[in-house]
C-alpha cells in the first residue's frame, strides 16, 4: 500500500476516497452503520505477522468521524492476512437478524499467509453473516485478481477514478432492495406454471426460511418477492415429484430471476363405466428407483411433472402399467376395467386359492386358508383358476380346479361341490 499512484501512495488515495464515500452516504441519512477493520498495519513485514488484523472502529451510529480518525492514524507496513481478517469479520457484526451485512474489502495484494480466503468467505455466507464480500483491488495483475473469484465480486480500480466508481457501485448495490421472481417454466420454457408450494431453505443449516404458494399476477407474470440477499438458499418446488434447486445465491440490489423447469400434466384415474364411489388406489412410482411418489385415489386428478411413471393399481390382481407417459399441459386419463364379483360357495371347508395365468405361469391372486360357506371377492375381468382342497381328508389328490370367468361389473357364482 506504500506504492505510489499518481504521486501519492495507494493507501493515501484509498483513504481519501473512502472518507469521501462515507461522508456522502452519511449525508443521505440512511440506516447504515459502518465498521472499520484494518490488516497489515501493526507489525512490520519482517515480523511476518499472520494475525495482524484489528477491528479499529466497531459498528455504531454516526461514527463516520471515528472512521476518518482511524484511517488518518494508520500506517501501512505489514503482511496481507486476508483469510484471517474475513474470519474475524464474522464477529464484527452485531448479529441482528434484521440487518443486511456487507463487507467491502480493499486490497492491493494477494493473501500472504497460508489462509484460504475462499473458505473464509464461504463460511460467512453459509452462516448468513454477510453478503459475498465486495473486493476492490488497487491495480492487481490478472493472476492476483483471479485469486478473488471465489471470495466475492471483484472490482478492479486501476486508478483513483475507477476506485471511486467501484466504491459507488458496491455501496449502492448493497443498499438497494433485492427482489426475486421465481419463474416456473412449462415444457415450452414459458413462465406459465403456477400454484405450486415453494420452500426456501437456508442452504447451510437446512432450516426452512420461507413457505410460499406460487402465484402469478393478473398480467400473467410471476409475483415478486423481497428476500434477504445474504447467504445461499435451497429451493424446493413441491410438485410431484418435487424439484430442488441447490445453493441459490441472490445478487444483492438486483431483481433476481430463478427459473425452475416444472412442466406438468394431470393424471386422472377412472374406472370404466364410471361406477361411482371407489376406494381404489393407484401407486405412482418412479420408474428408476421404484419409490412411491404419490398415492392417487381413483376418480381424482393429480398433477405430475411431465415424464414417465410406473402405475400400480391396487385391484385384484394388481394392474401394473410401466412407463405411463404424463404429457405436459394435458389431462392424461388412465382408465381401468370395472371389477367383477366372484361368489364362491362350498359345503365343506377347505383351502382355496385364486390364480391367474400370466405368460403360461400361474400367479397367486388370493387365498383363503380356511374357506367355508360363502365368500365374495372383487376381481378384474378375466379367467381365473380356483384351486380347492377340502380339509376333510388329507389327500393331495383331492385338489380340485375350477375355471371361473369374471366379467366387468357382473357376478360369477362358483359352487365347489
Amino acid at each position, binding site marked *: 500500500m506504500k506504492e505510489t499512484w499518481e504521486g501519492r501512495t495507494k493507501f493515501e488515495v484509498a483513504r481519501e476516497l473512502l472518507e469521501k464515500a462515507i461522508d456522502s452516504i452519511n449525508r443521505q441519512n440512511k440506516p447504515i452503520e459502518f465498521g472499520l477493520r484494518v490488516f497489515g498495519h501493526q507489525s512490520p513485514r519482517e515480523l511476518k505477522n499472520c494475525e495482524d488484523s484489528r477491528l479499529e472502529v466497531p459498528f455504531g451510529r454516526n461514527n463516520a468521524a471515528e472512521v476518518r480518525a482511524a484511517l488518518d492514524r494508520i500506517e501501512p507496513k505489514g503482511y496481507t492476512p486476508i483469510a484471517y481478517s474475513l474470519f474475524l469479520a464474522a464477529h464484527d457484526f452485531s448479529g441482528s437478524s434484521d440487518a443486511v451485512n456487507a463487507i467491502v474489502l480493499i486490497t492491493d495484494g494477494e493473501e500472504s499467509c497460508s489462509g484460504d480466503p475462499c473458505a473464509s468467505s464461504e463460511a460467512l455466507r453459509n452462516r448468513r453473516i454477510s453478503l459475498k464480500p465486495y473486493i476492490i483491488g488497487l491495480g492487481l495483475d490478472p493472476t492476483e485478481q483471479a485469486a478473488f473469484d471465489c471470495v466475492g465480486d471483484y472490482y478492479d480500480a486501476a486508478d483513483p477514478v475507477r476506485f471511486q466508481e467501484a466504491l459507488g457501485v458496491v455501496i449502492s448495490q448493497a443498499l438497494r432492495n433485492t427482489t426475486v421472481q421465481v419463474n416456473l417454466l412449462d415444457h415450452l420454457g414459458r413462465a406459465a406454471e403456477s400454484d405450486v*408450494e415453494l420452500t426456501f*431453505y437456508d442452504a447451510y443449516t437446512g432450516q426452512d426460511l420461507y413457505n410460499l404458494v406460487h402465484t402469478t399476477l393478473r398480467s400473467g407474470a410471476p409475483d415478486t418477492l423481497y428476500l434477504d440477499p445474504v447467504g445461499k438458499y435451497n429451493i424446493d418446488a413441491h410438485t410431484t415429484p418435487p424439484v430442488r434447486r441447490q445453493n441459490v445465491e441472490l445478487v444483492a440490489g438486483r431483481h433476481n430471476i430463478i427459473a425452475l423447469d416444472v412442466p406438468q400434466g394431470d393424471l386422472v384415474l377412472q374406472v370404466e363405466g364410471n361406477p361411482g364411489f371407489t376406494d381404489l388406489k393407484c401407486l405412482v412410482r418412479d420408474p428408476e428407483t421404484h*419409490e412411491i411418489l404419490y*398415492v392417487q385415489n381413483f376418480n381424482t386428478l393429480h398433477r405430475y411433472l411431465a415424464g414417465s411413471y410406473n402405475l400400480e393399481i391396487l385391484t385384484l390382481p394388481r394392474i401394473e402399467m410401466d412407463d405411463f407417459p404424463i404429457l405436459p399441459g394435458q389431462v392424461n386419463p388412465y382408465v381401468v376395467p370395472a371389477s367383477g364379483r366372484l361368489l364362491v360357495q362350498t359345503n365343506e371347508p377347505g383351502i382355496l*386359492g385364486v390364480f391367474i395365468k400370466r405368460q403360461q405361469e400361474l400367479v*397367486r391372486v388370493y387365498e383363503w386358508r380356511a374357506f367355508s360357506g360363502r365368500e365374495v371377492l372383487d376381481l378384474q375381468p378375466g379367467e381365473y383358476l380356483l384351486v380347492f382342497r377340502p380339509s376333510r381328508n388329507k389327500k*393331495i389328490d383331492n385338489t380340485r*380346479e375350477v375355471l371361473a370367468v369374471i366379467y366387468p361389473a357382473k357376478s360369477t357364482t362358483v359352487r365347489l361341490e
Partner: protein
Amino acid sequence: MTGAVASRTETLPPLNALNRYRKTCFVSLALVVGLGAAGGLFAQPVGEVPASKPPTTRILFLVDASRSMTDIWGTGTKMAAAREVISKIVDTLSQVDNLEIGLRLYGHLSYQSEYNCQDSRLEVGFRAGNHQAVKTKMNEVKPKGITPIAFALAQSAKDFPEDPDSRNIIIMITDGVESCNRDPCYEIELLRSKNVLLRAFVIGLAMEPETHGVFSCIGDFYNAGARADLDRVMERVLQKVLSRTVLRVDLLDEAQRPLETDLNMSFYGLPGGKLRYNFYHTLNDRGEPDTVYVDPILDYHLVVHSIPPVSVDKVLIESNQYNVVKVPAAQGTLRLGTLGNTFSYRLQALVYQTGSRETLNVQDFNSEQRYLTGKYDLEILTLPRLVIRGIALEQDKITTFEIPAPGYVTFVHAHELIGSVFTAVDGEREEVFQLNPLPRNETIALQPGLYQVVYRAKQNRSMRSTQTREFEVKPGTTSSLKL
C-alpha cells in the same frame, strides 16, 4: 426369490425289480394295465371341472426300413427284430385304455440308389383297434432305401390328431443316422414349440457309440447293443410311457424338517412348460407329506405358491420310482393391526422384500398372512405413508406390527384455495397431500404428529399472502381447522 432351488430325486428301490425280460415283461406291463384300468391314471388337466376323462396317450412307432435293416443281427435281420418287438408290444398295448397307436415308416418306398429324401409315409394312422393293421404292415414291409430321419420327424407332426390334452409320444427304431442334409434336432424343436409332441424315445439297433450323441436332442436314446437287449430296452421305454410315478414334495422348515404345508404347487411339464397339475400340499394322517402321481414322460418345473413363490427349475422324474423333491419353504406370519380405534377406511400395507420396492403382496390391516421367513419392508398407505424397514419374520411365529390410530382433521374453508399439508422429515418438508381447492369441508385421517398446512386463497394474487399453520394430530381424535 423365484430363484432356482436344487431338486433332488431320491432313488428308492424300483417298485418292480426286473431281471429277465421274458419273464418280467408281461408282469410289468400287466401291472401298468392294471393301474390304467383302475382309472385316474393322470391328474386332471387344467381348466377342466373335476372328474372328466383321462387324457389319451398316442404312440407313433417311427421305424427305420432303410436298406441296412436287412443286415443280419443275431438270429435274423434287423427288420425281423423290429417286427418281433413291435408285434409283442402291440398285443400288450391293445389291453390298455385310452391309448392309440400309429405306424410311420421311412426308407421303404424307394431304393437306396434313388436317394429319396422324402421317403417316409404314415402307414397306419391313429384310430381305435388298428393293432392288427400295424402288425400286418410290419410283416409286409421290405427295407430298401435311405434314412431321412428329419423329414420323417417333420411329417409325423401331421400324424397326431389335434387334441391339446393328449400325450403324444414317438418311439423311433433306427439303425442309422440322418442320410439327407437336414437337422433332426431342428425338426423336433419345431414339434415341441407347436406343442405337438410330448416326448420322443429313440431305440438304436447296434449303433456305434459315437453316433449316440446325435440322437440326444431328439429324445431319450437307448442303444440295443445286441438282439437280446432289444426287448428289455423297449420295455423300459414303455414303462416310462405308461407307468405312473409317485412324487412327494417335502416343504422344509428352517430345520430341514418337512413340516411346512397348505401351499399350492403348480407343475409345468418339461419340455414345453405347459401347466400340468395343481396340488394343494398337505400332510397326511401320519404327519408326512402326502404323495401324488405324476406323468413320468415329463420332467417338471415346480412352483410353490408361497409369498414370495419358490420354484425348482427342473424336477427330474424317474419312472417307477419314489421321487422326492425337497423345497425350502419355511414360513412365518405377519399380523398387521392398529392401536386403539380402528380405521374407518380400508388400510393396506405393501410388503416388499427388504431393500426392494417391487410389491410382493398387499396386505390389509387387521389380517394375517404367511410369508417365507426373512426380512421384509412395509410401506403402509396411511397419510403420510409409513415405511418400516427390515421386519424379520421367523419360523412358525406370528410377528405383530401395530400402528397408532389416526386423528381425523377437517379442513374448513369458505373460499377456493391452493394449499397442501406438509410434514418435516429430517428438517425437509414433504408434501403429505394437497387440499381440494373447492370451498368445502374435507376430512382427512392423519397419523399422529406435527404438521403444517401452507395455503393461499386462490383469488389472492400475492405470494406474501401465503399462510402457514402448524397443527398437531393426536391418535383417535377429531379436530377441525378453519383456513
